[in-house]
């Protein structure tokens, strides 16, 4: 009995190649290698092969079996890979569809500015102090060198509660408390942020409630030059390294001399633009050397100690920094407005 082994191998090869799925290849495997498959059938023919040819026949069947197994294995791997490839293809998504939003909240822009200022001052060794918004006339005015008949009470329309209490009109009230608390624990180096209230009608540039931050430094030999140097550092931290400052004469009852501080415009760099009203300068801080009466009233020897103080409006800084044109935005809390400020900066 002659078997054409080459032909058989070719037939097997063709069957395997034709299988186009894992199911089909399994059927081919059963047909070829199963108990009742073609290879088994050939094995069954062994008994009819003459003895001298048995060895040769056996080797040929074995070779055919091995090559078949090899071909089947390769084909299975091939089909599995194709199946995975097909699965992946089927699973493809449109990556341009919208994400599942991870919403994160925002700090209020005034908090952002206040915290940034607090950080600048803390790095310079200032302690942050707060105080009551419902304040005594004593700390808001009397101690700040503004007695009852003082003309500058006209400058600040005050919300009064009764004869002794009012809503503080200036964070100077906190400074006066600090002076008293630390009179025997000098030097003083503090900033005092907080809400203040003035009897103003609300419009684009006025608010009956706003936030101030004042700073106070008291020690031996503190000079107006020290004030200028300190404010220069602060202006640069807030508005950029290139900023210059300019001092102008002003008046506050609790400082002498008193100054307005202008910062060179951060928008145009001083060339002139609508933000600085074409002056190149932006008025941003009030400041001065602490009035000797203010020190004396708090129990500090004004012959030995001197100090400087300064104040800034948080809304004003935020409006300048972000180009906000209406102060009422801060208190209307339109979420779209607030969320403008959520990014780290």
């Amino acid at each position, binding site marked *: 009995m002659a078997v054409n082994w080459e032909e058989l191998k070719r037939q097997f090869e063709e069957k395997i190649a034709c299988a186009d799925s894992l199911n089909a290849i399994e059927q081919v495997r059963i047909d070829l290698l199963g108990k009742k498959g073609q290879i088994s059938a050939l094995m069954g023919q062994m008994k009819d092969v003459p003895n001298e040819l048995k060895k040769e026949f056996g080797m040929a069947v074995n070779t055919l079996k091995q090559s078949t197994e090899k071909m089947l294995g390769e084909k299975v791997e091939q089909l599995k890979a194709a199946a995975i490839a097909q699965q992946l293809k089927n699973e493809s998504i449109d990556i341009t569809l919208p994400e599942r939003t991870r919403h994160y909240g925002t700090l209020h822009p005034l908090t952002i500015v206040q915290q940034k200022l607090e950080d600048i001052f803390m790095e310079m060794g200032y302690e942050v102090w707060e105080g009551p*918004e419902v304040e005594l006339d004593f700390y808001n005015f009397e101690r700040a060198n503004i007695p009852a008949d003082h003309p500058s009470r006209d400058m600040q329309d005050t919300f009064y509660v009764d004869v002794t209490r009012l809503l503080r009109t200036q964070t100077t009230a906190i400074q006066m408390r600090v002076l008293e608390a630390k009179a025997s624990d000098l030097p003083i180096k503090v900033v005092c942020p907080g809400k203040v209230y003035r009897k103003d009608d609300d419009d684009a540039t006025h608010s009956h409630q706003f936030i101030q931050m004042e700073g106070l430094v008291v020690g031996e030999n503190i000079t107006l030059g020290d004030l200028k140097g300190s404010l220069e550092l602060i202006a640069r931290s807030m508005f950029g390294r290139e900023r210059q400052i300019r001092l102008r004469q002003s008046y506050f009852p609790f400082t002498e001399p008193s100054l307005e501080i202008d910062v060179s415009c951060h928008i145009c760099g001083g060339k002139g633009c609508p933000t600085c009203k074409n002056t190149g300068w932006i008025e941003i801080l009030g400041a001065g050397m602490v009035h000797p009466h203010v020190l004396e009233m708090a129990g500090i020897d004004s012959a030995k100690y001197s100090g400087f103080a300064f104040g800034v409006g948080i809304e004003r800084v935020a409006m300048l920094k972000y180009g906000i044109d209406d102060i009422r935005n801060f208190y209307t809390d339109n979420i779209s407005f607030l969320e403008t400020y959520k990014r780290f900066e």
Partner: protein
Amino acid sequence: MIVTYNWLKQYMDLSDVAPEYLAEKITDGGHEVESWHYQAVGSNLVIGKVLTCVPHPDSDHLHICTVDTGEDVRQIVCGAPNVAAGQKVIVALPGCKLPEGEIKSGMVRGQQSDGMICALFELGVDKHYLTEEQLSGIEVLPEDAEVGNKEVLKYLGLDDVIYDVSLTPNRADCYSMWAFAKDVGAILGKKVTLPDYRYNTELQKADLTVRSETDKCPYFYGKVINHVEIKPSPLWMQQALNAAGVKAINNVVDISNYVMLETGQPLHFYNLAKIPAREITVKTGLNEMYTALDGVQYHVSEDDIMITTQGKAIGYAGIMGGDDSKIDDETTGIIIEAALFNLVSIRNTSRRLDLFTEAATRFAKGIDPLAAEKAVERSTQLLIELANASGIEETVICGDPGYLERKIETTAEQINTLLGTEFTDSQIYGVFESLDFQPKSAGRKITVSVPSYRSNDVKVWQDLSEEVIRILGYGNIVSTLPKMPTTQGALARDGAEKRTIRAMLNGYGLDEVMTYSLVSQAKIDEGVLSIGEPVRIANAISEDRRYFRTSLLPSLMDVVSYNQARNREEYGLFEIADVYSDDGRQASHLSAALSSATTSSKWQKISENNDFYTLKGIVLSLLDKLGYENSRIGFRVPEKENEVLHPNKSAEILLDRSVIGIMGVSHPLYNRKYDVDTCNLLELDLSAVLERKKGKIRFTTVNRYPSINYDLALVVREEVSGADIVNTVKKAAGSLLKNVEIFDVYRGASIEEGCKSVAVSVVYQSAEKTLKESDIADIHAEVLRQLSGKLGAKLRD
């Protein structure tokens, strides 16, 4: 405060000082020039004469005029109703730039027109100072106006420059043009010469009684001038007053205003004939109606300082005189008043009457104690000169300015130390000299005498340092940093905790808001975590802002409502702010509002429902983060119902058994009140939280042994709470209990009516060994026994 270039020019040489430069220097010297402008403008003007004037054939109001301009005769079409042949007029020639635009030659309804005949307002003159006649027609110049004169503005006295200066409260002295000129002189380094107001007239013995019955009028100067002649004041005075914003009336009234502007001392002139008793008494306590010279009737209140004669009010002291005794064309004699009235009183009366006159402004800011005398003398001199005054009596003075000249001693070193400058003795001395402080030096010491008009402001040597630096210039200051011991920066009390809270809530998606502290009575009443009785503002702007808030949620509801009205249905908001009570307590509160859903993907339809438990999770994690572990926190049904929260979906939050906050789902009626959808609300008393002791971070060995987990399905009655089950398990299980957790709550067909099935996971773990079932058999049996015994719980089959 209005200051004019021409006025200052009377006192010093300004020939090398341009108007713009003057504005800059005044500002640098500490008096901010807020704005400045030319009184009138017009570059190519000439005085002309109208030769002929005929109606325009194609118009019912235009005229065709021929005008002689001195150099030529030209045709001009003019629309003014009052134009007529023979008039001397102001002609704007082609090329002339006026506020409204440039004049050009052209055709007007078919007629050539080579210029414009002008009205004053067309030259930019403030309409406030013009008469009806001047506003409705061209300006007709006097007969003697010289045709061909091109200096028209100068001819009109309209060539002035007007500065609007913002004076700081300490420099009220500059409401006197004389004091202001002194200051400008010092700033510019110019010699200032003020008018000499001596006069040479024999005075009659005074026939006038002046009394003050109130301490609100410390002194009063009165002077009778028996004869004056009323007529228009000279052009120079009218022009000066107009430029300064004061309307010219007649010579006598104009003098009172002019001298007030010069000296800063408000003056009042009474018609002598209307005070026949020749008696003036200043008093308070009147209560009557009174007609002031503006013709308006005012109700006099008892605190108002009044000028009276024979018990009858004739003037609001320091604010406005009476209609009855005012100077009119018939006046033949006057009484001059120059006095001091209490500034607080004047301020209050002015405010009540809403009557802020030039006089009241000056009194309210404080005046030179020696100005009364100067003003009386200067007025007398001008009355003699300009109103033929005669029968001049001696001045009658009641009270006394009590003025003592102040001397202050300082040294250059002292001033330089404060300023951080290196000015020389002579620079500093020079500043004092220029300001008329009459410095005297002895060794290194400089002693100055403060002029009376600066006595309200310059009191100590530090004030002198300000004079030095503002006159020598702030540009001289070199930047340095304080030389002092190093100090450590620190946040305010609770500052770090508040920053943590903000960051955490931001992480949960909540936006921070800020709202107004002042609220209405209604908002106070809504408070669910009120600190107490509210602080009431006595002089509130409106009832909407009458109280300082005692809690925060009602304000936050406005923000929710505002945003929802703008289609923001999903939001998370919070605010941290302080609340106050009338009895002096203060606390920081936190309010939060969370919409009932948070959608993360619309097209995938993924949306998280936010409810009571969402907010509860936020509260617990927040408190945990701050150092208050969940075992210290409790929730209980609020004792009192409120209009804000759903009565059965709200809780008081307890920390160590005391209430620190309240939270819950919004009440349906409250939603309707603010027109919002159901949301979740929270208010926490942060101060009450943060004053409690915080848990510390402590290392514990990581447990290496496996745990054993039992799941129990219990059936309990509805009223048994989750906390009841958890607490019972905790108590019964003892120290081997690692965790107990409810993982399912079920009500349904297979469960008896009025009951619910609660699935609980109980985890046991030992720190010492691997637990065997037998180790915890007894414990677990005890857990089941107590659940059954205390709560009536049955194991579900």
